[in-house]
């Protein structure tokens, strides 16, 4: 399943979904998070050390994380600020710790946390506005590699077609 998480003010997730339809992509799910109440990760670490696998913040995030934990790909659709994704999109990313464990191993020459579930989705970014494309690609690569998955790349809004072709 390809999971699209829209955090943009203009809700450009629907444009992405339309493009997916035109390309007959199956099993795409769009979640519009813009009206949801999703707070920032407060770094309590309880999801690792107190209630393993469970976030103590009870807001609208948990159903999204459940979807993330079983998706093949997650695409973050974000406005940009400081050339980077918005804080709203970053909060969604920061809150994924419950699907990661505190345990570590070296895997392919890189220290990584052992993932809690058997699979981890690939990551992609679609951004609207003045993003630093090179940096966003670098960041997405690094994050996916931390999770032991692959990056599908970061694409500006004008490249939605290209992004969809990589799904």
């Amino acid at each position, binding site marked *: 399943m390809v999971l699209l998480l829209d955090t943009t003010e203009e809700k450009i997730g629907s444009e992405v979904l339309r493009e997916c339809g035109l390309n007959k992509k199956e099993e795409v799910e769009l979640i519009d998070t813009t009206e949801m109440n999703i707070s920032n*990760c407060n770094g309590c670490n309880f999801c690792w050390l107190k209630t393993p696998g469970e976030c103590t913040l009870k807001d609208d995030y948990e159903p999204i994380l459940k979807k993330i934990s079983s998706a093949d790909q997650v695409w973050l659709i974000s406005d940009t600020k400081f050339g980077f994704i918005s*804080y709203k999109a970053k909060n969604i990313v920061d809150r994924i710790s419950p699907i990661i464990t505190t345990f570590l191993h070296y895997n392919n020459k890189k220290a990584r946390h052992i993932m809690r579930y058997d699979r981890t989705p690939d990551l992609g970014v679609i951004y609207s506005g003045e993003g630093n494309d090179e940096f966003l690609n670098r960041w997405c690569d690094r994050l996916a590699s931390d999770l032991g998955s692959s990056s599908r790349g970061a694409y500006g809004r004008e490249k939605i077609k290209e992004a969809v072709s990589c799904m």
Partner: protein
Amino acid sequence: MHVVVINASPRVRKYSNTDKIMISFCRGLIRRGASFEKHAISERKYWGVIRQAFLDNDEIVFAVPLYAEAVPGLMLEFLETLPKKDNRTRVSFILQGGFAEGCRLRCGEELLRDLTKYLGVSYGGCLVKGDNFSIRLREGECLDRIIKPYEKMGELFANGDGFRFNQAKKFTGPEIYSTPVRIATDVVFKTVAKRTMIKMAEAAFGCTTPLDYKPWAQNSYELDSAISQNEQFFTLKKKYNM
């Protein structure tokens, strides 16, 4: 010199690793005759006060924990509320994270450097060091050993060149571990570090659930593996008398 030091972690001050690092850094500052004020963005009610301090001063240090290869979402939100300033204000950074090798912090460092352009201020450099995850689980001498080196960095910062001095570069430690060190670290991860985590979780948080428990087992295979993990965990606990 008066330095405004801002903790950009969302973690409350009492449990924040960054806070402990800042305390040590600030000790160094005062030893060299500089003064400082310490702030933390974890409580939103102080954001107005911090903004004013940012506006009124020209030597700012953000102390930042790496969150998902970048700065925490909360810091991005706070930065959006800052007024524009000019390059008479210098912003420097202390970037710290959980993973030890220097290369793990470079992506975050790039983001911080670029941030100063968007804020319109001048960049005073970035003090980069990882291997700090366990600060929150340590106390006494053990804690002092980890945070003490930041005191020296505070002293050197008071010279007035931001973090643009040689010792700041060296402070990061190895950029990447050599193969033997990697292999040894992997063994530590899988034995001592693993047991310590389990012990700490129980001692500090009363947690008796296996730390790799899967609350959302999605099929019978995952359910089986969750159950066997559970059994393994209790065998391990017995074995190590925990």
